[in-house]
């Protein structure tokens, strides 16, 4: 750490979320392994990774729903449960979390009564656009209406940090757009948002910063453009029996080399150099060069690079 960063930290920039060496084991399964992460106030951060990468486990620890096996979690300088008790943190769940036999208004009033300070129930209902269905039983509401109710509940205490687990699952394109413009407007007022997703596209479009997580580790952390650049490159495929994989891997800009029977597949940023080498230095034939799709790039980052990028 440079000296400049050290002095910046002493100037009381309270981080919204701070994870230091956080690990979580479930028996023999190491769900989260030594994650270090600091999120500044007002940032919109995407937690991107495949299912089972450790996203939900990490979010549960930030919410104080579970305790890390090792390491420290702090939220706005407080223990997670203290932050929850003050209404500073809230979260929106993907499914469930509602009682079907309560009305929409009762659900909001019930939740509001548990906080020391909340916004008025009617105002929150109006903001979420659910005043008209206030007297309807939750069980009779559509999926979209229930989702709006969950947001209303999460925003009751005017939280400084909002956690969203796969927030737009099941929303249509229009709903998704409206949802994110609301979230962005809130973030401009200083609210920090951390959302988990397994869609690179969604992370890229709506987050200031993407934290890529795979097998319980952070494998990349940066802006959407940076993450895409990491995952960029092309695939060169050729027929080359007994390929010298070590020589190929030693070429500049080569990420990964694999062989399948007589074929060799090279993932590289500089595909020209690989092709030139294959055609001039080896008896390779049938050379194909293809651009990697965004999802494929994502898979190569989260699937193969276990720990290698750290």
């Amino acid at each position, binding site marked *: 750490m440079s000296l400049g960063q050290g002095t910046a930290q002493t100037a009381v*920039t*309270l981080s*919204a979320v701070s994870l230091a060496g956080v690990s979580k084991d479930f028996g023999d399964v190491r769900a989260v392994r030594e994650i270090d992460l600091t999120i*500044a*106030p*007002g*940032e919109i951060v995407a937690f991107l990774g495949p299912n089972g990468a450790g996203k939900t486990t990490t979010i*549960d620890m930030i*919410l104080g*729903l*579970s305790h890390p096996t090792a390491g420290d979690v702090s939220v*706005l*300088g*407080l223990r997670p449960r203290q*932050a*929850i*008790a*003050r*209404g*500073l*943190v*809230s*979260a929106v*769940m993907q*499914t*469930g*979390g*509602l*009682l*079907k*036999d*309560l009305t929409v208004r*009762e659900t909001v*009033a*019930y*939740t*509001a*009564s*548990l*906080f*020391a*300070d909340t916004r008025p129930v009617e105002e929150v209902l109006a903001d979420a656009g659910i005043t008209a269905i206030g007297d309807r039983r939750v069980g009779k509401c559509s999926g979209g209406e229930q989702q709006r109710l969950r947001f209303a*509940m*999460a925003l009751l*205490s005017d939280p*400084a940090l909002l956690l969203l687990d796969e927030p737009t699952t099941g929303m249509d394109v229009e709903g998704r757009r409206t949802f994110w413009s609301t979230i962005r407007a809130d973030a*401009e*007022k*200083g609210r920090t948002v951390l959302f988990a997703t397994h869609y690179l596209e969604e992370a890229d479009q709506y987050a200031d910063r993407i934290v890529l997580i795979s097998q319980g580790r952070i494998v990349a952390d940066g802006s959407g453009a940076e993450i895409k650049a990491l995952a960029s490159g092309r695939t060169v495929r050729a027929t080359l029996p007994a390929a010298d994989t070590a020589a190929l891997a030693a070429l500049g800009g080569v990420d990964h080399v694999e062989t399948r029977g007589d074929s060799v597949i090279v993932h590289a940023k500089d595909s020209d150099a690989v092709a030139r080498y294959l055609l001039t230095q080896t008896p390779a034939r049938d050379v194909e060069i293809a651009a990697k799709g965004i999802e494929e790039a994502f898979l190569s980052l989260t699937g193969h690079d276990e720990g290698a990028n750290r």
Partner: protein
Amino acid sequence: MSTLTLDPEARRVPPMGGFNLTVLGIELRRMLRNRRTIVFTLVIPAALLLSFGGQQGWDDKAGSGNVAAYILVSMSLYGAALTAAAGGSMVALERSLGWSRQLRLTPLNPVVYILMKAVVALVMGSLAILAVNATGKLQGKAEMPTHTWFACAAVTVFCTLTFAALGVFVGYVVPGENAMQILGPGLALLSFLGGVFIPLDQYSDVVRHVAYWTPMYGVSEIARSPLTHELPWFAVVNAVVWFALFVAGAAWRMSKDTARV
């Protein structure tokens, strides 16, 4: 980058772990809207009283009242126990729906949540007792001194806590809304065994000795003691031990469950 405008320490924590009357009001309204609860709470115990209470010899002397009064106290215990058990089983149901997890995202203390559920169970139990007593009054057969009516009702309310705990325990063991299908017939069986519906001296020695060990026996003796002025020591032991067992069972299942909140 924008700076944080609020001071986290300036935000307040709610008093009493989140205990409040709004939640109690909503929970009660919710119970009273449920047709099933109303049938269990108000209709069945009153109907049982009308069918059992008119049996032969209802006006014979029993303690400081008559046999009809004895039956009335027993039926109000049964009604209140059933109601409290129904309330208790909702804890597990709410957990399976993810509501408990939702509540964990609020300042509500989990112990306060259980406490509020217990208060709701007590209020609902009181309603059941009130329904049976009002029916008994209208029927006009039960006779006992007024202070005995009140003493029996008050003692019965607290006896129902045992069954609220049983409800929580069974709710966890039997998932979903099926808990009441076990609790309903189960409590009826225990009530027969425990001498709530039929006095124990009508049973054979073998059955009676089994009955002394069952959970309804102790509380029914306690609930009727202001009327009968009799309270065997083993009935008190029975009530205390079963209460402790059910609370321990409920706590055990709940703590096992918190791992996945």
